[in-house]
Every structure is written in C-alpha cells, then in structure tokens.
C-alpha cells in the first residue's frame, strides 16, 4: 500500500506532537500552582482586571480558586488553569449554588466553566456570596 507523502508527514507530526506533550508530563513540567493566601489572590485579581482592588476574599483552602469582591460590588472568580490562573468578573449569567461548606460558581461562560470553593467557617458566609452572585444584573444591583 502506498501512503501519500503529505499524509505520512501529517501522521509523523501528530505522533511527534503527542510524544512531546507526553514527555512534558513525564518530566513533570508545570508544577502545582496554588493561591498561597489572600494577598496572592488580590494580586491575581489585579492581574485579571487591572486596578481591581479586592475588599473581600473567599479563598478555597486548596488554593485552586478564589472569589473576590471590590468596592463597586464587582465579583471576580479566579480559578486554576493548568499551572496558571484565569479569572472573570462575574455577570448576570453567573450562578452560584451552596452545599454544605461549599459553593459552586458557574461563570456562565461554557468554555471558562466554574469552580468549587470550600469554606472553613460557617456556611452562612458562602450563602452571602451566593446571594450576591445570583443577584448580579438584577435592578437592585444596577
């Protein structure tokens, strides 16, 4: 059987791509990025949206996600993406659900997704966050 040279190049390239990505995994590149503390969460928020000054922070104990609120009432979700972090200022499309000691925030962007945040303290504070998120875009917040 004769294989078209272009098809062969494509197949070899595809194998090389997976081999390199696998090698990166084997070599344990990437590391384990975590948000160390609230100060780091604030710094990340400023990176997500330049000038965002967080007044309240809810940091997941694992350091994988954080919720932040600024003086204007804007709420930002930061979540781990690979070994980096990405964030969104939440809009009316966002939804939040509270279970025991945990809040799940859906950013409303299908590709960005959402994040879980646990809270060591009484879950009442999570309810406050959830209410604030679920109220976004409603007339009283306008």
């Amino acid at each position, binding site marked *: 059987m004769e294989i078209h040279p272009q098809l062969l190049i494509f197949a070899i390239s595809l194998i090389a*791509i997976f081999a*390199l990505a696998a090698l990166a995994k084997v070599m*344990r*590149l990437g590391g384990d990025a975590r948000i160390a503390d609230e100060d780091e969460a*604030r710094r990340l928020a*400023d990176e997500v949206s330049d000038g965002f000054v967080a007044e309240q922070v809810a940091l997941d104990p694992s350091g994988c996600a954080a919720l932040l609120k600024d003086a204007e009432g804007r709420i930002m979700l930061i979540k781990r993406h690979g070994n980096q972090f990405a964030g969104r200022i939440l809009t009316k499309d966002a939804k939040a659900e509270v279970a025991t000691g945990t809040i799940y925030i859906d950013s409303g962007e299908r590709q960005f997704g959402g994040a879980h945040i646990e809270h060591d303290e009484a879950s009442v504070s999570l309810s406050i966050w959830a209410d604030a998120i679920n109220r976004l875009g409603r007339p009283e917040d306008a």
Partner: protein
Amino acid sequence: MPDFSPTQYAIPLFVIAVLAEMLWSRFRRPDAYEPKDTLVSLAFGLGSTIAGTLFGGFALYVFIEAYEYRVFDFGAEWWSVWWAWPLCFMLDDLKYYWVHRAGHRIRWMWAAHVNHHSSQHYNLSTALRQTWTGSFTFGLLFALPLVLLGFHPAMIAICGGFNLIYQFWIHTEAINRMPRWFEAVMNTPSHHRVHHATNPRYLDRNYAGVFIIWDKMFGTFEPETDEERIRYGIVKQLGSFNLLWSVFHEWIGMLSDIWRAPWKHKLSYLLREPGWTHDGSRDTSDTIRARWLARQSPANPASNPVADRNPIADGHEAA
C-alpha cells in the same frame, strides 16, 4: 523557479529546540511548560500548516496575477539577482511589522492573530501557535506592494519563511538579554516577551518580526523592565485548553457582536480595535494603559505588587 520552503527544513530543528528547552525547564523553571498547553500549541502548529495548504491558494493566485503588473522586472532568472534577496527580506520584514500591527489593532485581523497570543506561557512551543484563519483576513494586501514592485511571489514566500524561522527562537524565557548591539537592531527574546505580555505598560508594543528598528521608527517600542513580572497571554485569558475554542473564539465573539450591534456600528466591530464597543462597556488596550498610567502619577503612588515575583528580573542571569 526554485521550489524551496525553508520552514519545512526547519521543522526538525524546531522539535530539537523544544526538547532542549524542556530540559532547561526541567532543571531551571518547571513552570515554563505545562503539558496541556504544550499539546494545544503544537496542535495549533500542525493545524496551521493544513489550513495554509487548504486556503493559501487564493493569496497565491492574487500574487501571481498582480505580478503581471510589476513596476520593475528582475528578468526571467530573478532568483539570480543577488541584491534583490536582502532587499526583499528587509521590505518583507517592514511589511510584517505593519501586517502584525494591523493584527493587533483591527479586530478582524486580531480574530486570526489572537491564536498566537492565547497561551499564558512563553516558550518555544508558543512560537508554533500559528493561525488557522489568516487566509480569511485581508492580510495578503500588505504584501501586494512588494509584488507590484517586482519581487516574485516565490521570493517573498522564501523571505517570509526565513522571517518566521527567525521568530521561532525569540519565544523563550531561557535567554535574558542578548548583547547590547544586537538588542539595538534585532528582535530578541527580551523585546518579544514584551510583545506577548498583558501588563498594561506592554500592551500593543514591539510588533517587529526580525528587526526591532521598525518599532523604534514608528513609536511602538517598549523595552523590557526588570521591575515588573511579565504576564503572558491575552487580556481576557481563555481559561480553556479546548483547541477549537482557542482557534475560533474571537471570530465567534466578533461575529456575535456584529450580529447584535445597531446597524451604524456593525462595521466598527469588524474594523476597530479589539475591545471597542459602541457603548464603551469593554476595555481596549488604550483604555487599560491610560487607567494604569493615571494610577502611576505621583498623586496616586500605586505600589507594584508583582515586582518581587519576576524570575526574569533576577540579576542578569537567564530566567
């Protein structure tokens, strides 16, 4: 006519260089690579070659037709005119500067170019994150003056290939600064890190391909400072490793904006800068920089919260 594609010959070199940088990363900066990000970057590279083969024919047709109307004629053996090669390379690099600048300042062009910036990493695999959709922009128009001057489309393609190969090695954090004379004239890892940065001070700067002199001439040069950690990617980071979303997200965003916009603003969503909205509800790179600059004024001495985490800034060693 020579049938030669320099980028094809360079592919093994690219693979070896990525391997070498991975080894460097393993021992010096494990966070410089991330397996999923690398996979997406490399898949971008493969996909772009397929897209170029499938959709590049139209540009080739336009160039060959335009060549018939050339002002100067280098003769049937145009490839043997030695001085035409460096001249073509230089002019092609000038063309690259402008098409690249348009790629950042016109949303239609940005929709295709954003792919190259969508990684939050800056390594040699990022260099291979090339567009799949460049053929669906008007980028080819920037090369037409060269064709009309008399440079054969094949000569322009070969020069463009070498230009692309040059740009590969500058996508790295493994090299801090090159010698001063080199930094003054050539595009370098330091200059191009600035270009890939999302820090307000760096937005829409250093568009150069090979020669940084174009940025210095046209007022878009910004040197890398050791005082601030560079953050890579795009202003609104994707937060996703979905390859198809990475390829098409800006096209989807732009077309949905055009669909929803009032008629008198539809064209602006195509031709104005990324982030522009008719109601001012989003940020452009200009508004982000202006806001940042306002905070830097003596009356508002904002601290620099990221300075102490800059691995590139540590001394004069490679990061």
